[in-house]
């Protein structure tokens, strides 16, 4: 089984953007923004 790297990239990018979004939201919330 070999999955195209461009397909894997889509999922990896989703995870990275979501984690950055959550981290940024927590950071802004703690700063009271």
């Amino acid at each position, binding site marked *: *089984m070999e999955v195209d790297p461009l*397909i894997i990239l889509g999922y990896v990018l*989703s995870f990275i953007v979501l984690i*950055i*979004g*959550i981290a*940024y*939201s*927590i950071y802004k*919330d703690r700063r009271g923004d």
Partner: protein
Amino acid sequence: MVVSISLDVIIIAIVTMLTAIVGLVGYRISRTFVGYMFANKSLGPWLLAFSIMATYFSAASFLGGGGATYIYNLGFGAWLTAWHVIGVVVLWIVVADKLYRYVSKAGVLSIPELIGYLYRSTLARLIAATVIVALFNLYLVSVYRGGGIVLSTMFEIDYKIALLILTLPAMVCIILGGMKSAAISNLFLGVLMLIAAALTFTYIMTYVGGLINGLSSFSQISVLGISGTLWLRFDGAGPRLAMEKGLVPILIMSVTFSIGMAQTALPNLLIQFYAAKNSKAISRGRLIGPILVSLYAFLMFSLGMFCHLVLDKNLGDQQIAELMKNSDFVIPKAISLLVPIGIRGLILSAPVAASISTITVTILTITNTFIRDVIQVTISLKEVNVIRLAKIFSIIFSFTPMTIALIEDKLIIDVVSAAFGTIFACFVGPVTIGLYWRKATKEGAIGSMVVGALTGILWYIYLYRSTMIHSTIPATLLALGTFIILSILTNRKNV
């Protein structure tokens, strides 16, 4: 595909009735315009986040989004998920807070009014109002059509009755309680959609023996003579015409971008930030909103290809070929095979829930725009009359798209299919970028909306099928180009 008249039907009937009953919750506060349209600005983070998610995801997200990789390779699921995650993070982090601050400061009550305020232009406001009323009515036609076709096919009922089943609970809900009722019913419907997505994912993944096992099976199967390995290649499986032309990757990227990123500029989503209780609701929603949308996307958007392992051995070549043309029934068929009665009804109520939740807030958005930016701009009315008019027009805007959905005309179907992405193209410059870019001008905003609307519709009708590039891409590029160039030119002139 027919679902027997049983517990399943009863569950779906309960879901639709509950939506109407929830209308009573918002009845008390719907006696003022702000109460009716903006829930007296009382929405907390959970209501806001669930309502925005449920508004954005129509039945197409469950049926089209869920079944798409039955036709396309897994890349469609991967990039549809990616653009949804990027879109929802941009919506909550970049747009929400800034929009809420502007709205609170200026006291505006609609998206066109915000455009009028940002660019000091009544003409820009009127054009924005025209675009919203026209394109959202057309977009609703596609929501009604999708939900109506599914309901009528699953339960073997008349298409017209299916349309009424979608229209009536949504209409009762918003006439009784406006935005407050719509948001509460969206919370309920949104939870239902997430539960349905989780159950669908679990049943299909359990059947195929888990993700890795399911993917490995594709190296050993073929579908109508097409090797299963093509579902694991980004330039592999797709619609026949796109495969022949070698345009599958372009088609995947343009369609998934159009669907996923539209949420950053859709007025029926943005208007809900106006109803936030306070800035704390926005900052807490900023955490909840992206998690909800991402969870739904991860659970649903890649399931279609695994349905080959569930369905194909039970179907003839003719039936597989039909599903490879229109994959909307792939998920319902798989659910009918794998899921026991009762739970099946709960899952199949998700597309109905998704349609109703989109219809309620979108009708409110159209009504709000029409009352606030067309009628109130020209006539001065007492508050009580404004509420009456709002409720009358909510009924009119419930039935207008439903009536158009009854017309079987290729041109109309093309136009309504183009409406969703075209709305994004029209407003991404004037609203989303305009919130930050102080040098943007009214000429740029007006030009952007006009160019976006014309390009979006005309490209879809005449060029989409031959180029395999979704109309949203050229419409967005041309609208943004017009917005930036005209703003720079006229800004200099004004200085």
